[in-house]
């Protein structure tokens, strides 16, 4: 028996590549939904909106204090129960078993990642000098306009490196999706390993693919950072 079946190792790449879109889809959907959710949670906490504020604090604490895998199971087994209950109560015409498993993955990851991102965003917004908002108000903008046009773009520059780290962690966490039978890269790797009876080769291959994806994200974040931070430093004067 060969120590390392190079032939087999290489043959797994096209198979793995086939399911890269699944991993990316989970990452992108969860990341986008998380940013929106996290911004709302962060604003609730910054503006201390009564009622919602306590709810947000409990949510963040729970989401950060329980394992991702548990949250996936809670989503997978819990959401159908809720949907079923609502269906029985309001007579919806909806078959729970028709919901693809990946939807529960979207929910679980958004739930988890948004909690971390909300803390990032909250810190980033608080890091912006309050004079920026005062200046916005002093020229007659509303708080919302000041937030959207002045404070948030600056907060984004502060938060972007953390966003990158979160996205990278998320890519790696998507490997848990196979636990509820969503065939993403890790799931595909297990299937290939079982089929060829060579696991080590497949896992080396899948590790390299994850690594490559993470390097690409790192690069993209670095590029984005340069763009959103162009106002901060000694960069060249922007052409008009």
């Amino acid at each position: 028996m060969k120590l390392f079946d190079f032939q087999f190792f290489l043959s797994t790449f096209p198979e793995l590549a086939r399911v890269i879109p699944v991993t990316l889809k989970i990452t992108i959907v969860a990341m986008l939904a998380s940013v929106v959710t996290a911004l709302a949670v962060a604003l609730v906490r910054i503006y201390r909106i009564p009622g919602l504020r306590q709810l947000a604090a409990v949510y963040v604490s729970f989401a950060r204090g329980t394992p991702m895998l548990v949250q996936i199971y809670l989503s997978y087994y819990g959401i159908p129960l809720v949907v079923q209950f609502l269906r029985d109560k309001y007579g919806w015409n909806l078959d729970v078993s028709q919901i693809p498993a990946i939807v529960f993955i979207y929910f679980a990851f958004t739930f988890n990642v948004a909690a971390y991102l909300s803390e990032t965003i909250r810190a980033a917004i608080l890091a912006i000098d309050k004079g920026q908002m005062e200046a916005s108000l002093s020229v007659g903008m509303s708080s919302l306009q000041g937030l959207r046009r002045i404070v948030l773009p600056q907060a984004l520059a502060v938060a972007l490196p953390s966003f990158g780290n979160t996205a990278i962690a998320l890519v790696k966490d998507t490997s848990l999706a196979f636990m509820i039978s969503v065939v993403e890269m890790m799931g595909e790797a297990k299937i290939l390993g079982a089929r060829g009876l060579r696991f080590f080769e497949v896992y080396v291959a899948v590790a390299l693919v994850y690594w490559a994806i993470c390097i690409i994200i790192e690069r993209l974040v670095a590029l984005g950072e340069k763009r959103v931070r162009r106002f901060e430093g000694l960069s060249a004067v922007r052409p008009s």
Partner: protein
Amino acid sequence: MIKLDDIWKAFHHNQVLKGIDLEVRKGEVVVLLGPSGSGKSTLLRCINCLERADKGTIRIGDLEVDTAQLRKPQIAALRRKTTMVFQNYNLFRNKTALENVMEGLVVVQGIPVKVARERSAACLDKVGLGDRFNHFPSQLSGGQQQRVGIARAMAMDPEVILFDEPTSSLDPEVVGGVLDVMKGLARDGMTMVVVTHEMAFAREVANHVAFMDGGVIVEEGTPAQVFERTRELRTRAFLQRVRRDGPALAGPAPAGAAAIPGAGPAGGGLPALQR
């Protein structure tokens, strides 16, 4: 033009303003003087509702509001009539100099971008920054940033510009440039309320000077009245301190000044404070 009537403001248990009355006529420059903590900045910030006064009425032009029951539309209306120049400039850090000036015109006044750009460029030219349109605040010196701040304030064509210690963060050698811009504005008939420690500016440009201490206006009048014929002991003590610490100020010491404990020798001679 502006009339403040019995303005009160407390932060927690600290009563900062204790019933301020102030009147500013159109085209007038009013300078607020006073030691730190006397409430002058707070008063300024109450005028455009960056701080909400607890009690009192504010009238600007034809708009009169009771600060005890401010509503959002009233705040918005007050802010449309005023703009502010800040001690720390507070330029929008993510916008170029030109965009800083344009922002309010486009977003608040709804002026088409092209028109707003022309008007903003003219304002920047006026403050001597015609060659800095596309610089970000981080690429400008303090004096340049403050001049953009003034351009931003005047572009909105407000009824009054509020200056909150506009030169206090600046290096001494650039203070003069900023004060010159302010003098130009005053000459053009802009109504201004200025919190400053620049005594020479107050003497030269102000129509009216108000000295605040402990949340009240202790003394007010023309610069000549306040600086040369000072009536109140507290004003006199403050002016003495400023003269001793800072460069010599104009005017002979008021009679009796030497009797104030701790008062140093008054600086002699006339406007010595040329920067």
